[in-house]
């Protein structure tokens, strides 16, 4: 067998490893091994590439691999679990940028490569990769809540400008495909797509960030696949399309969980309805409770459901919640956690935060599973969630969150909402649940509230 065939087979082996690896992620028990198999696949692919006949000079490869490994390892070890969305955004971006650079380097080959059909792929790498890189960097800055990026930069003709940039990139692509070796056209496309990446992500914020992260994840895969077409490399195409599919699926799940279309998330602006109920009107009958009163509720409860939102993570309350969970379980009370698909800042984020606090994953229940349980729940404790439990989503068709599937917390015998104040959530609408007959508001910082509850329970 010649060397090229060996390399091809090694690439095939790597691709199989990636597929097996992702399949391992279908259960928490097999997931660690799955991830290791994926990493093994990557090692195989890298070794196979080092055998490639085109690779004649190793110094810079080794320098790049060492530097990249060090930076990657430091990032992975140091990142806080609450900052996982930023980390994924950053890594997405790096993947996208790498695709741009590889396709750019391919254009510089001596003698020039016979581009032909794959010229389109070269420009696809440029566009998708650049949008991914700059979009991800901006998403990172927004998630880190850097001051300058807290609010989107406002300017008129938002969508026409985006359309113009898109058309510009397309026109340059056509030019580039006609004259395949036009290096200038390539980097101009990179420049335009970079601007486009920023203008596309700029207006999106808050609760819509999970969708953006998932979509950019998909793009980073598609960029890799496009680069695979440029190089005629099967392992790049296979892994790129796997990741592309994964990102699209997650994007869809997020959009469905908000009852919004992808177009609406990406290009629409969430606005409060015209005749949204007035806050004072809604909150006339709000009752508040103290830690002691809530603790007394727990005393007679047999099932408690905790509904965490990103507010819990902001207050760093997950470890206090874990202590409360143990205390309640030790008294024979069943404790479950209700997780809305868009809770947290990326798909599955809340589960990771609770797993970090060592709460068993079989206690975390998805929306469809937990909603029927609320009717047989004594106390539902809402901690840092708001829009995802707002009954207006079901009752008010004019509401900006109309049709969004919610956690039906109100069906529990008593609802305790731990919240600093009555301030609205991201959707900027009041929540009638807070004033419902069976709801008690416990006004406090999330972590302090839970600690107070634990103290009251122990008395």
């Amino acid at each position, binding site marked *: 067998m010649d060397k090229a065939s060996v390399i091809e087979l090694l690439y095939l082996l790597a691709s199989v490893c990636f597929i097996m690896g992702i399949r391992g992620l279908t259960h928490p028990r097999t997931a660690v091994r799955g991830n290791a198999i994926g990493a093994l696949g990557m090692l195989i692919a890298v070794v196979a590439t080092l055998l490639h006949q085109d690779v*004649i000079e190793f110094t810079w490869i080794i320098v790049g691999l060492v530097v990249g490994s060090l930076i990657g390892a430091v990032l992975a070890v140091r990142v806080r679990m609450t900052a996982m969305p930023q980390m994924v955004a950053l890594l997405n971006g790096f993947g996208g940028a790498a695709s741009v650079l590889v396709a750019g380097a391919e254009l510089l*080959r*001596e003698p020039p490569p016979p581009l032909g059909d794959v010229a389109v792929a070269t420009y696809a790498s440029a566009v998708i990769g650049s949008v991914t890189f700059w979009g991800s960097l901006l998403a990172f800055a927004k998630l880190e809540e850097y001051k300058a990026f807290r609010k989107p930069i406002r300017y008129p003709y938002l969508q026409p400008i985006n359309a113009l940039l898109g058309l510009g990139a397309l026109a340059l692509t056509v030019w580039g495909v006609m004259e395949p070796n036009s290096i200038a056209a390539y980097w101009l496309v990179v420049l335009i797509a970079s601007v486009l990446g920023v203008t596309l992500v700029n207006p999106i914020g808050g609760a819509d960030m999970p969708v953006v992260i998932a979509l950019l*994840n998909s793009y980073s895969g598609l960029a890799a696949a496009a680069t695979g077409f440029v190089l005629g490399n099967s392992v790049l195409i296979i892994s790129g*399309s*796997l990741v592309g599919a994964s990102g699209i699926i997650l994007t869809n799940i997020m959009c469905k969980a908000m009852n919004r279309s992808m177009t609406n998330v990406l290009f629409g602006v969430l606005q409060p309805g015209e005749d949204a109920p007035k806050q004072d009107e809604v909150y006339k009958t709000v009752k508040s409770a103290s830690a002691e009163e809530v603790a007394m509720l727990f005393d007679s409860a047999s099932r408690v459901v905790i509904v965490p939102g990103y507010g819990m993570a902001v207050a760093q309350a997950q470890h206090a919640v874990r202590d409360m969970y143990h205390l309640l379980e030790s008294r024979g009370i069943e404790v479950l956690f209700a997780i809305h698909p868009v809770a947290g800042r990326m798909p*599955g984020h809340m589960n990771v935060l609770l797993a970090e606090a060592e709460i068993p994953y079989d206690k975390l229940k998805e929306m469809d599973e937990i909603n029927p349980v609320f009717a047989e729940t004594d106390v539902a404790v809402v901690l840092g969630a708001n829009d995802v439990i707002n009954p207006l989503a079901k009752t008010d068709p004019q509401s900006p969150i109309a049709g969004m599937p919610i956690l039906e917390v109100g069906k529990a015998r008593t609802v305790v909402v731990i919240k600093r104040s009555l301030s609205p959530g991201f959707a900027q609408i009041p929540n009638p649940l807070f004033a419902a007959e069976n709801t008690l508001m416990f006004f406090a910082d999330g972590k302090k509230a839970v600690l107070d509850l634990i103290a009251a329970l122990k008395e």
Partner: protein
Amino acid sequence: MTDWMGLILFAEQAASASDKVSGLPLGLAITIFVLAVFVGFEIITKVPPTLHTPLMSGSNAISGITVVGAIIAAGAGHSLWATILGTLAVVLATINVVGGFLVTNRMLNMFRRKSN
């Protein structure tokens, strides 16, 4: 169902008709792409929501496969600029790969810890 069967059929036809580019006929490349997308859809829809964050960071690491292209670009000695671009790409893609797999491993260990 029938939609994507048609797509694959198209890809196969394109494969037999196209000319060779960079070692892999374009049509064959499209075939591989389409089939891999469907394999992706099949397995990824089975991943439970609990593991969606590790799925994202893990698949993210896999998208760092661009490192393969980067290595060829950095090591082929085509020109100074190609080497510079390639080396930079190796660095970025390796951060993607190593950071992605390690952070996924860190997260998944948290799930395993309390699974019994």
